[in-house]
């Protein structure tokens, strides 16, 4: 066989790979969050590591969209000209960019992918210190397979405005127009909810985000913590675990966000009424961004290795795990940065601790089943602490070393146990026809009370008569 008949093959990428293929791997909302991630990474470059209570204060991003355009503008430092290769090339070449900062950009694709996801015409205007320039992406450039360089126009009239970036995208893709216009109500709901939850920690640290003029308020996970001074003995406090491995700092906490649900709440939920299930489950934060929010699946340890499957009765249990690293590639996230890499070694080890902590609270819930009102006093005596406050509190707690598996330090709370039923008390429960219950409700002139309260009132009424 003649070896020369084979010539080297062409392996240069085609633009449709970036424009039409990569964009399928990400939801529109997540693509917009990628643009917000860039804003926060910009702050870190400007200010260095995030320290203090509100390191992102006075930084803001504004997102606006309608049926014909999308824009995001920020005052987060702009794109330094020295970063243009990283910012505008399809993919990241140098791994040493931001090597000493806890940013989340790893692959150098987020901004471009978001732009191509949304539309075909884009103008990126940025100002960073002495640099002020604009980069334009046009439909013609997207179509041209041979032209990989983007025109840059500089501007010398630098003003006194803070360093910033504005991205304006037009010629929106057809399905994007539909989401921005026909489904605006639903899409805005989805975007705002995701920013409220996934950016809760960053917004709580001072960053301001507006969507079509509406300021977003954070919705952070808060866990019940009873101050040590208030209660020395058993009390409701979260499980806490801390460690540092291979340059990744890990802080984990799991506990209660609210009182455990009554049987009626559980029944109502099963009849399709929705209570606070959305707040239950695990939230995973990587470099301040939530990459997973309130997950209740096996991904976070529910329903495996002795932990029961998630059920409405566990509505009160929530957990937070925070991973911090200056090397974003060590974080257990997927390429979209909105999911956990379940095969990551570090995550699999931390998951063991997540299950350990979770079991304390599923056991508590099972022990107090049917005694929701009695357990509530313990939960009411605590306060709701957010992640920062839990971290501060963990410094005061006595954490014990863990010597097996992933090393680290943990705090195992001593949770209250229910008193055994005294022999002088017995539980009465029975079921009756709904129509008959309504008749009694009406007779008692108490139309708003629950069936179990109807039963209790009937008993008290008869007891009163019997005792006369």
């Amino acid at each position: 066989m003649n070896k020369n008949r084979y010539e080297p093959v062409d392996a240069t990428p085609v633009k449709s790979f970036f424009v039409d293929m990569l964009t399928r791997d990400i939801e529109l909302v997540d693509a917009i969050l990628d643009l917000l991630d860039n804003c926060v990474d910009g702050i870190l470059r400007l200010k260095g590591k995030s320290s203090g209570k509100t390191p992102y204060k006075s930084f803001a991003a504004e997102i606006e969209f309608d049926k014909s355009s999308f824009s995001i503008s920020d005052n987060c430092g702009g794109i330094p000209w020295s970063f243009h290769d990283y910012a505008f090339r399809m993919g990241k070449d140098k791994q040493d960019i931001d090597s000493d900062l806890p940013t989340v950009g790893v692959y150098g694709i987020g901004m471009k992918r978001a732009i191509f996801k949304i539309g075909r015409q884009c103008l990126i205007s940025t100002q960073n210190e002495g640099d002020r320039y604009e980069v334009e992406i046009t439909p013609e450039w997207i179509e041209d397979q041979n032209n990989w360089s983007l025109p840059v126009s500089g501007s010398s009239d630098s003003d006194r405005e803070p360093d910033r970036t504005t991205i304006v995208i037009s010629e929106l893709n057809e399905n994007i127009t539909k989401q921005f216009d026909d489904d605006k109500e639903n899409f805005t709901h989805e975007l705002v909810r995701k920013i409220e939850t996934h950016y809760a920690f960053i917004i709580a640290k001072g960053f301001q985000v507006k969507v079509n003029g509406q300021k977003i308020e954070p919705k952070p996970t808060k866990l019940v913590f009873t101050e040590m001074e208030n209660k020395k003995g058993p009390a409701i406090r979260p499980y806490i675990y801390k460690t540092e491995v291979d340059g990744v700092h890990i802080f984990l906490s799991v506990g209660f966000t609210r009182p455990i649900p009554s049987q009626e709440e559980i029944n109502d939920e099963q009849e399709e009424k929705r209570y606070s299930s959305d707040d239950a489950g695990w939230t995973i934060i990587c470099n301040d961004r939530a990459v997973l929010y309130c997950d209740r699946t096996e991904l976070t340890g529910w329903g495996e290795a002795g932990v029961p499957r998630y059920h409405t009765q566990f509505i009160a249990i929530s957990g937070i795990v925070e991973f911090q690293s200056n090397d974003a590639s060590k974080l257990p996230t997927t390429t979209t940065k909105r999911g956990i890499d379940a095969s990551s070694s570090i995550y699999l080890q931390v998951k063991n601790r997540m299950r350990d902590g979770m079991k304390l609270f599923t056991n508590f819930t099972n022990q107090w089943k049917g005694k929701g009102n009695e357990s509530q006093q313990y939960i009411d005596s605590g306060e709701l602490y957010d992640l920062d406050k839990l971290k501060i509190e963990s410094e005061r707690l006595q954490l014990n070393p863990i010597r097996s598996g992933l090393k680290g330090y943990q705090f195992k709370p001593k949770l209250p146990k229910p008193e055994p039923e005294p022999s002088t008390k017995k539980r009465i429960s029975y079921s009756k026809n709904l129509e008959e219950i309504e008749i009694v409700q009406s007779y008692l002139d108490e139309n708003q009370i629950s069936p179990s309260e109807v039963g209790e009132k009937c008993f008290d009424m008869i007891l009163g008569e019997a005792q006369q």
Partner: protein
Amino acid sequence: MKHPPYHLRVNKAVDRFLLVEILNILKKHCDISNYTYYGFGGPFLEDCRLINDHCPEIKIVSIEKNKQTFKRQQFHRFSKILDLRHDDFKSFLANFSSTGGEILWLDYTDLRPGHFDDFMSVLGKVSEKSIVKITIRAKPPEQEWEKFYREYDQILPASVKETDIKRPTPFIGLLQQMLQLASQRALPALGESIFQLLDSSHYRDQTHMLSITGIVCNQDEVEKIQQWFQNCHFVNLKWNCPQKIDVPILSTKERLHLEKYLPTKAKTGRSLSRALGYKIDNTESLKQYEEFYQYYPYFARISI
């Protein structure tokens, strides 16, 4: 089971007639003889009766969960074509499959998160050019904001504020936005069909209610369908604020007297007020009467 006096509610009666009006317009543009009306009927089957009077060609199904009410419906059954079903709506819906066009009225008397689920399920199940109407209680809830937020979080618009659930007008607006959001979630613009709103009204007989009606239609037919309804005086195609129905209680003698002055051009209520020579509630209520007099029901006391 105690029922409110549905059959004596004038504003509710007007709302029923608005549905009939929509069906009359629909009839002009498509054959509805293979349509089926699904409703909750109530003990006196008022809605079913009205639909049967105006659209005798369509089949009518009433779904009733309560056994005693169901028996009462059997007693009031007015036609052989009326199919009375003793079933829970959720299980009915689980087994439902479209057999042609549908006219479906989710006529609730209260407000629950499950009603929005039902609305979304219905939108996903009916065929194109089906009419879907939902009525829910619009009285501001007594529960705490946090509890309301938790229960309805999934369908609350991004702009929702705590004050929206405190007063009637903002709450009605909020509920309409929630229904809009639910319709967009059930039939997203990226799909083939969408929910086109046709009418949105709020009224108060004993308690505040919000009632919206729309049509499920193919994206390609939206403009055409909007044109069918655009001259209808109560139409709301763009999710604007719902119109208020608040017709006055008038005696038969008063109504007969006012007939000769109707319709009016200005619809301000002033000419009817002058015609009566005395005030009834306020001018606004006579303005409402001018707007909806064609749909105003006649109630009379008769001895049998």
